[in-house]
């Protein structure tokens, strides 16, 4: 019985922890980095414009009312439209905002991989012995003659 109670306690704590991890406490500094000032074209955290101050007041009221971060973002979208989010949603054409960087990364990685493989193949094809290259035709004869001429 005692074991069952202990197990229930552990499970309660574990699931309680997971639940709180799924819905973190909203904070103004965190949201200021994730939403835009409605008139400035910058993150809310970078603006002291009157409209930005009103947006902050609105967020504080929502936090005080116990709203989660997602709920506050939804409320901001209802007030200002989807442009208020610093990151676009991942639906429709906005999905390309996430897809294009991934594609660029994959293409760049493949290009680097291809270049490395090609460079290594070229390197493997080069002669590995220390044999000096042969002199052009007649050069050795001319050298012998010159050495004999100057008695070197």
């Amino acid at each position, binding site marked *: 019985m005692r074991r069952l109670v202990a197990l229930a306690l552990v499970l309660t704590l574990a699931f309680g922890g997971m639940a709180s991890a799924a819905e973190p406490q909203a904070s103004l500094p965190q949201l200021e980095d994730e939403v835009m000032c*409605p*008139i400035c074209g910058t993150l809310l955290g970078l603006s002291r*414009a*009157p*409209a930005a*101050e*009103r*947006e902050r007041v*609105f967020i504080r009221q929502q936090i005080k009312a116990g709203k989660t971060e997602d709920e506050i973002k939804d409320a901001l979208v209802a*007030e*200002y*439209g*989807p*442009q208020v989010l610093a990151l676009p949603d991942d639906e429709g054409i906005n999905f390309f905002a996430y897809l294009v960087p991934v594609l660029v990364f994959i293409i760049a990685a493949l290009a680097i991989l291809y270049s490395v493989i090609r460079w290594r193949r070229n390197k493997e094809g080069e002669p590995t012995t220390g044999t000096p290259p042969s002199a052009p035709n007649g050069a050795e004869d001319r050298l012998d003659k010159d050495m004999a001429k100057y008695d070197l």
Partner: protein
Amino acid sequence: MNLRTSLVVLGVAALLGFLTWGLVTSGDSNLAQGEPLPSATLPTLPPGGEASIEDFRGEWVLVNVWASWCVPCRDESPALERFEKANRDSISVLGVDTRDLSGDAMDFLDEYDINYAQIRDASGDYADDLKTTGVPESFLVDPEGNLVAHYSGPFETEEQIEEFAAPALRAGAAKDPAG
């Protein structure tokens, strides 16, 4: 010229082409007088309906873009209210509340007792269509929906509003000489 050089030259030429195209297509910074004022169907303030400038076709309209956080609007809006009351036979006033919190906007309308028609441009897209650079800004629109005059900044006095709306007031006086 080898292939690599050709590609670099082509890339630079394409970049310059895009920049030039962007400059050429950026257009004027203001709406042209005589052209139709852009229209958008937006929620009304107080909430509950939808309206657009098209609903005022056949009337002279003074469109005033404002926001509750705009300090000069606190003097201008009551002046517009008095102007609208005095001249509603000749002209309508349509407020466009832009990039504003709905609660703040309603508090503003209550505090300054503003009763002329209002639409809410939450995202600011309509203000962008009107090519505004700030708030307040006003547009005089004729009965055909064309832009007659544009005013950036706040009206300081009712006389300034009357001067701005003079074509509408003259047309109203001509229609009703007794009034």
